[in-house]
């Protein structure tokens, strides 16, 4: 095994090869987070169910009872939970990834491994809660005797989209937080705003047509619409909006890795 250490940015190819080399670590870091998360709590993993359930309850109270959002023939609970399913994964991953490097200082200043593994592992841990919410969603589908149409076959595609987008934003945030600790305070705020700027509790059809171009600059809008389309058969946004989202996700992902790499080499010096 030969290692070459040079000034400047490491080559992308050798970086990716290293990440594959350290794939066990990627899984183990995710496992550690998952194990530690509800350690010594009385309710343990029930928390992973309680959180979405309570949020759902509040959404029903606010959007269905108070605002009286119209979701047509689809039961509101089912409608909202589908949105929350994608959104809570995204919110979890970007919050966790954002502070991930800074909070593993002890590791990062003492030993080498591809640092990108740290934020990426958050994308994997998030999948556990994602599965738990899916369970809840399946229960609701059975409860309402709602049978998804053929569109449901495209669901994996939307899941890949939300994972990619979350990791892209997570990578950006984790690298930015190393330099600007301010992000630690900004991210929770962004998550809060994003919840209302995305069609989680209301249908995107309520957004006036002239604002849609701006609205769909947020890829989560297109992704959540996609989740609903595949599960509940609600209409998809215009193709050009989906195209925008796809391009934005890819650009963010690639630039995120690029920026992360630039910062990575200085982590031990500036953290």
């Amino acid at each position: 095994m030969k290692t070459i250490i040079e000034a400047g940015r490491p080559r992308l190819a050798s970086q990716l090869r290293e990440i594959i080399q350290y794939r066990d670590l990627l899984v183990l870091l995710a496992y550690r987070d998952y194990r530690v998360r509800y350690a010594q709590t009385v309710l343990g993993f029930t928390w992973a169910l309680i959180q979405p359930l309570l949020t759902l309850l509040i959404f029903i109270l606010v959007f269905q009872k108070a605002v009286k959002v119209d979701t047509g023939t689809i039961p509101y609970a089912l409608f909202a939970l589908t949105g929350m399913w994608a959104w809570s994964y995204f919110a979890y991953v970007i919050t966790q990834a954002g502070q991930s490097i800074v909070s593993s200082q002890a590791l990062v200043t003492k030993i080498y491994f591809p640092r990108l593994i740290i934020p990426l592992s958050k994308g994997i841990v998030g999948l556990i809660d994602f599965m738990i919410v899916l369970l809840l969603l399946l229960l609701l589908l059975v409860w309402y005797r709602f049978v998804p149409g053929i569109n449901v076959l495209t669901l994996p595609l939307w899941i890949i989209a939300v994972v990619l987008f979350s990791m892209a934003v997570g990578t950006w945030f984790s690298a930015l937080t190393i330099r600007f600790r301010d992000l630690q305070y900004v991210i929770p705020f962004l998550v809060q705003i994003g919840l209302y700027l995305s069609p989680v509790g209301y249908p995107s059809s309520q957004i006036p047509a002239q604002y849609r171009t701006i609205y769909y600059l947020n890829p989560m809008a297109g992704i959540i619409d996609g989740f609903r389309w595949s599960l509940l058969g609600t209409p998809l946004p215009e193709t050009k909006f989906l195209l925008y989202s796809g391009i934005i996700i890819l650009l963010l992902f690639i630039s995120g890795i690029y920026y992360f790499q630039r910062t990575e080499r200085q982590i031990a010096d500036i953290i």
Partner: protein
Amino acid sequence: MENAITVTGLSKKYQLGRKRSGSFRETMSERFSGLFTKESNEAGLAAEFWALKEVSFEVKPGEVVGIIGKNGAGKSTLLKILSRITAPTKGRVEITGRVSSLLEVGTGFHPELTGRENIYMNGAILGMKRNEIKSKFDEIVAFSGIGQFIDTPVKRYSSGMYVRLAFAVAAHLEPEILIIDEVLAVGDAEFQKKCLGKMKDVSEQEGRTVLFVSHNMAAISSMCNTGLLLSKGEIEFKGNTQDMISRYLEQIIQMPSTSSTVKKSGLTFIRINTVNEIGEQRTQFGFSEPISVKMDFSNLTDKQAVNIGLAIRDATGKKLFTTVFLKEHLFKGDHFVQVRIPAKTLLQGHYTADIALFDNYEAYDYLEHRISLIITDADSSLRNYKAEEIGSIHIPCEWN
């Protein structure tokens, strides 16, 4: 044979005085002030600090290299670059084989996880594959002596158990190249001893390459076959360990000794010499030779009484003993004192000495490590032992 490590033109620059981890606002205001003024740019340049400058060296497989130097000489920076924690500013390093450093012991341990889980976690962080850990798992557990507690969260472990487990994982990593920074090593004395023992095994029995940073000259001279002396980020000497240590001790003498002199009192050392029995100036003495330290000092005002002190330190910097002489009625002018350390007092090894002028109220002059001594022993019955085995001081005792 291919080198284990080849370092060419390695340099590392740090920015001083400018916080790189600054907030967003700071960076933005810096950017903007940079737009309008040139000074800020120049100020930035002035605050550069080269921790390493054009360092080049080679290490052959199986070599045990001791790296020494004063604080801030660049030892830790060099190790950090070699273990890839930080990136160099210039230069290139080629490493053949897996690198591991013992300062990583226990890195990544999580208190909530069990011993078993932490072994896998820690192993993966150190770069081991899961199968590799699996195959060594029983051995690691046996080595650590954790036994039945292996499925208990490590936060319930005693600190001793914790360190043993952490060390067991690191010890089974089997790196081709081992990096040890004793200066940074944490843990109790016993643990440090264990690290040194492991290092000895690794280098002597398994023929692995070791880089060892220490301030302990005795450890360096007993373990390393070559040495690297760093000074202000540059290599000052590379080669034979003994020669390197002598150079290092000389360097300490030339160092403007940390003097806390209160000049107003006007009592300072002028000249210090160490001489042998026949008055020849020396730094190297035989075990059976007496050592005389001659001190000239000047006094600007008459004083009631002044103490003159000499403290001998061993190669690790620990003070071994102090001798003090009370000089009464010290008049204005230059003075001379001489202290004789009897023959057969210091066993073979490297020593430094602090000297001081003081009274009950204040220290007039205090020079740390001002004197450096090398004691050689060719004839006594103790010559074959090392300082860590028999200590540093010889006291004649009577046996019947």
